[in-house]
């Protein structure tokens, strides 16, 4: 997942900032804002080609990949505080590219008093999560085994011991027909906590489904979960190809 690219603000050029928020904090907040990158993946240059581009080059529009794709998308923020104070939201960010815009319109960025002004240009580019977490399209990516039940060895734990266990762990176990059974809706972490710490040494063992598992991906909104998975798979296959060619070179 850390290899799947997405757009995020890489640096900002501040013309004017009268607010109490420091430029650095503002830059960090802007970088954290998820930007829509579904179309941008094809239209912008790859992270590897843009990595070494300096801010001066980017501002002059010199950052272009070998096949003519631009590196940076520009977003402009220009707001003046109104009477009673103004909160600047991401909807005030004007993007030059309609495909690269904030996913959420109502993210507060900073607050201004009357007469205070902020004017800045933010430069967003494609990047990968291993470089900085702001380029991580997936918030959660976990593989979970599927829980089938729990195995009790009668030799170690008789029915009295099982009843004790249910009393100690009412959120994970229940008694059914005089036997310890798994309660419905029990999560794996809850069960493992019970087995390893509370009912320790009582011969309990979880049963998992053998040839299937749950793979959970939660996206931050910039790419769909499906697209994230496809991009991550592409990155893995590219790595394998690179390894193959290297091995071939070494061998021959």
């Amino acid at each position: 997942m850390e290899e799947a690219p997405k757009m995020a603000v890489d640096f900002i050029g501040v013309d004017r900032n009268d607010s109490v928020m420091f430029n650095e904090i503002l830059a960090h907040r802007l970088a954290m804002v998820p930007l829509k990158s579904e179309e941008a993946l094809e239209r912008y240059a790859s992270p590897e080609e843009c990595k070494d581009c300096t801010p001066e080059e980017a501002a002059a529009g010199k950052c272009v990949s070998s096949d003519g794709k631009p590196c940076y998308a520009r977003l402009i923020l220009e707001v003046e505080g109104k009477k009673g104070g103004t909160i600047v939201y991401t909807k005030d960010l004007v993007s030059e590219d309609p495909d690269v815009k904030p996913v959420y319109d109502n993210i507060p960025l900073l607050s201004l008093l009357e007469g205070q002004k902020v004017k800045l240009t933010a430069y967003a580019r494609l990047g990968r999560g291993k470089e900085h977490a702001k380029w991580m399209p997936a918030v959660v990516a976990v593989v979970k085994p599927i829980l089938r039940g729990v195995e009790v060895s009668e030799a170690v734990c008789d029915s009295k011991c099982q009843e004790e266990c249910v009393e100690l762990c009412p959120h994970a176990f229940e008694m059914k027909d005089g036997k310890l059974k798994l309660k419905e809706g029990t999560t794996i972490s809850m069960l493992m906590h019970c087995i390893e710490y509370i009912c320790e040494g009582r011969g309990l063992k979880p049963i998992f489904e053998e040839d299937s598992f749950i793979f959970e991906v939660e996206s931050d909104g910039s790419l769909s979960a499906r697209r994230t998975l496809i991009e991550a798979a592409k990155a893995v296959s590219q790595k394998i190809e690179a390894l193959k060619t290297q091995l071939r070179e070494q061998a021959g």
Partner: protein
Amino acid sequence: MMIPVRCYTCGKPLIQYYEEFKKRVESGEDPEKVLDDLGLKRYCCRRTMLASIDVSKEIIKFSTRVHRW
């Protein structure tokens, strides 16, 4: 300062829910129910939402650039 854009631990964007959360909690709703309604399941996100305090309104008084009220 202002509350964080994302959850510190997992990185889920949270701040878009903050105004609704604040409004509903201030009107007397139980924070637990509001967090459930907003779909914040993980305890890292719930803690970030509950524990963040927006102090930008207090800090802004000490703004050095323009003093107009």
